[in-house]
């Protein structure tokens, strides 16, 4: 064994793990008056699995960023503590998904030994993605009554394709934009006096716009539309460095949203609720207001884990898990969460800048942008900076599709990190 043990990762995992275990113990003591092993056994199993992943990585001599895994484990661990406290059933299932997620992350890491393979299969990837979208458009089901038909599946097993689609889109765009990077130097086509983006940009731009509008109109899913379009715009900007295309794209999307606002009552309600939830505190504004009250109840240090009443907020275990954390652990911990995301994003971009190929750089930046945008969209929605949309808080919220997708994303980032360090 070479001397390349991931010591930093060991320390971070152990200290982070110890902290979330304390959280679980506190929750157990507060809820039941004693330490119930069942209350934190799932967390212990997950932490053990994370440690196993760490040992495997170390033994395999994997180099590269040692912060990504501990941050993900810390976020997931905090989420699991609160899920176990909110509803042991959800917590149990989440723990299973999280362990499975670690396996998927490892599988992704070891299967993408040559990252360039992904580049070659970009059109296959795009086709799979489009088929998924098509299926969702046609057979999508509305499982939680939100009005958005996001789920595919039958017989009790359901999956949210838009989750996986995020990663597929980033991989495809990274490959596609990398391939057509040369075109950047060429002049643009013109439609009269209006300069148009080059065809290789124009086509995906139109496709993406169509996809996003389709999500808006057919699936009523503003969150996913925002997320996808955001990812696309960010990567287009990364690849081209041109603000003009961005402005055109953003303007077109804004126009679509405006039309949707005028034409689709659901959107109108949602935007009106965003602007003034206080007008209907027991109607459409209820979730938003109850979420804010829960946050306010927490104050600086929170009511104590297990001692608040976050159960009054609808969807508190998924989209609104932040308010449960805010109520029981206070601003101190919610700011800590934000800091974890900030470090994660910072490390991702650092990785992108150190990558050895444009494809790897685009891929790393794109993947981390998925996390960045999604985190912002849901937190901003809960805090009324943006209209509320149904998006999970990455790594923290309950949800199998979300965990699987984010695990693939983590596996890819670990692979890119290892590659950035050069051949071992």
């Amino acid at each position, binding site marked *: 064994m070479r001397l390349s043990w991931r010591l930093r990762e060991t320390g971070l995992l152990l200290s982070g793990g110890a902290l979330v275990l304390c959280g679980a113990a506190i929750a157990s003591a507060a809820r039941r008056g004693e330490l119930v092993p069942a209350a934190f056994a799932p967390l212990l199993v997950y932490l053990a699995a994370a440690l196993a992943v760490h040992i495997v990585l170390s033994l395999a001599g994997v180099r590269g960023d040692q912060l990504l895994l501990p941050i993900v484990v810390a976020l997931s661990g905090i989420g699991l503590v609160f899920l176990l406290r909110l509803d042991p059933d959800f917590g149990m299932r989440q723990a299973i998904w999280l362990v499975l997620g670690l396996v998927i992350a490892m599988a992704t890491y070891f299967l993408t030994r040559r990252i360039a393979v992904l580049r070659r299969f970009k059109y296959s990837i795009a086709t799979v993605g489009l088929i998924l979208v098509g299926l969702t458009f046609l057979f999508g089901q509305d499982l939680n009554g939100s009005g958005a038909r996001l789920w595919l599946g039958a017989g009790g097993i359901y999956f949210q394709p838009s989750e996986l689609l995020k990663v597929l889109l980033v991989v495809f765009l990274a490959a596609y934009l990398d391939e057509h990077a040369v075109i950047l130097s060429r002049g643009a086509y013109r439609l009269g006096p209006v300069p148009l983006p080059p065809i290789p940009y124009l086509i995906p731009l139109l496709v993406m716009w169509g996809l996003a509008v389709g999500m808006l109109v057919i699936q009523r899913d503003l969150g996913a539309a925002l997320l996808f379009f955001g990812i696309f715009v960010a990567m287009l900007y990364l690849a081209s460095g041109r603000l003009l295309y961005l402005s055109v794209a953003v303007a077109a999307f804004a126009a679509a949203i405006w039309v949707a606002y005028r034409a689709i009552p659901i959107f109108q309600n949602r935007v009106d609720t965003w602007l003034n939830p206080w007008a209907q505190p027991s109607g459409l504004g209820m979730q938003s207001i109850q979420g804010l009250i829960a946050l306010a109840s927490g104050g600086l240090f929170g009511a104590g884990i297990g001692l608040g009443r976050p159960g009054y907020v609808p969807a508190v275990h998924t989209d609104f898990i932040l308010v449960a954390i805010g109520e029981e652990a206070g601003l101190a911990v919610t700011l800590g969460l934000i800091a974890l995301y900030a470090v994660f994003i910072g490390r991702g971009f650092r990785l992108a800048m150190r990558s050895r190929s444009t494809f790897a750089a685009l891929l790393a930046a794109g993947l981390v942008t998925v996390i*960045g945008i999604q985190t912002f969209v849901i937190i901003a929605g809960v805090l009324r*900076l943006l209209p509320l949309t149904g998006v999970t808080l990455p790594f923290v919220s309950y949800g199998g599709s979300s965990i699987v997708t984010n695990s693939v994303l983590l596996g890819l980032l670990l692979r890119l990190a290892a590659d950035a360090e050069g051949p071992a």
Partner: protein
Amino acid sequence: MSRLALLQLMGLGAAAAALGYWQIVRSPELVARADNPRRLDEQWRTVRGQMFDRRGRPIARTEVAPDGYVRRVYPVPTLGAVTGFMNPLQGMTGLERAYDDHLAGRAGLDPRTAFERRLLHRPVVGSDLILTIDLDLQAAAERALANGPAAPGALIALDPRSGAVRALATTPTFDPNRLTFDPTKDDWNAERDAIAAYAAELNANPAQPLLNRTTQGLYPPGSTFKTVTLAAALQRHLVRTDHRFRYELKPPDRDHRTVWHNNQFVSCQNHTQREFDLAHAFAYSCNVAFADLGSELGAPTYLEIARGLGMDQAPPFDLPVETSRLASRPDFFTGDERFYAIAATAMGQGEMLVTPLQLALIAAAMANGGQPPVPYLVEEIRRPDGRIVFKHQPRRWLGGVSSGTAAAVRDIMVTSVSDGWASGARIAGAKIGGKTGTAELGGVRTEPHAWFIGFATADDPRIALALIKESSGMSSAVAAPAARIVFEAALGGAA
């Protein structure tokens, strides 16, 4: 690329700022919102303090269910006007509301204990209230109101030396247990509906069971107000106790009424007697004599003394009180009717409206040195560990009248019971003082309200009371015997 990274970090920065805004800046306002379910939840899990009568018998207690929710129980439902009740629809009332801070355990903690509790999340246990109420006397008061014709009524009895309220009865009553939300029930919606239905039933009842008639019922006082006139005349030395009235009375008509100046009907005793002393003028409620006393005193003097006895101001009290007033119009005593106004007021007619509490305070003042006491219901507040965090301190409120005046009025009130319309309250061997009042309701063809105010005893003033039975006829037949029930209980050791 770094710009994109910066943009995302700025987004997170905005989120962090927004978190601070909602969790800290807007926190107090949001937490205080009525639709914050945590407030109710906290209320339903707070082990509120108990209420006891002055001898330690329970009046309100809290039962804790295994799941941590608590049920508030009122073992003496007829004291609903005192204890109050609490539910999410109507909030809190009565002492539950007035002493919520102590009952819920928020007040009376030293800062260090309060901090420890918050830090360690120790369950809050509220402080107990020791009330001035005496359940034996309360039972007697309820019997007194039930005596005779069934009618809405009110009785308040207090210790004239301290103002401690010993009994507070108002009928019809309601059951505070049925108006208090019970979170230990499985079906909260059904519980809420049951409370709403009961509340609607009470509100639809024309007799207004939720009205605390002792402190919020405003009634014409009738002849009981001659007590004020008597005190004013003696205080200003207009007459002495040996004063004698002589009237040239015209022959009585069929209705035993005689015509008095300004065509006002007045009457006295057997209506043929031309000469009587001050005590008997009071004991037999001679309108003409008291109208003359008032007229001679003049409105300004009369009103000043009446106000010194608590009229036109609400006494400080733990429960909501209505202000007893001398007139309903501001110019009643100065306008065109001014001569009539003072004469009518002095004999107990006019426009006055009083609460039973106010008349009880006037009776108490006469029984005990001339100053109306400050009424109160809470003697002591104790932490569960026995530590006393509040003890009632006697307070001064109004000047009242001199002790000499009060003693003279007291003795005349004793005469009124031993030889007058108030004799129904007589108890052999005890110097009971009192005055009846029969408040006729202008023009309406209903029976008048029957009043009694008085005290027991002149030598040892233990109890002063005022009672009213609405539309129940002549006071001497209805109210005086009812008062006797309470006096007997008080002299028997109940207060």
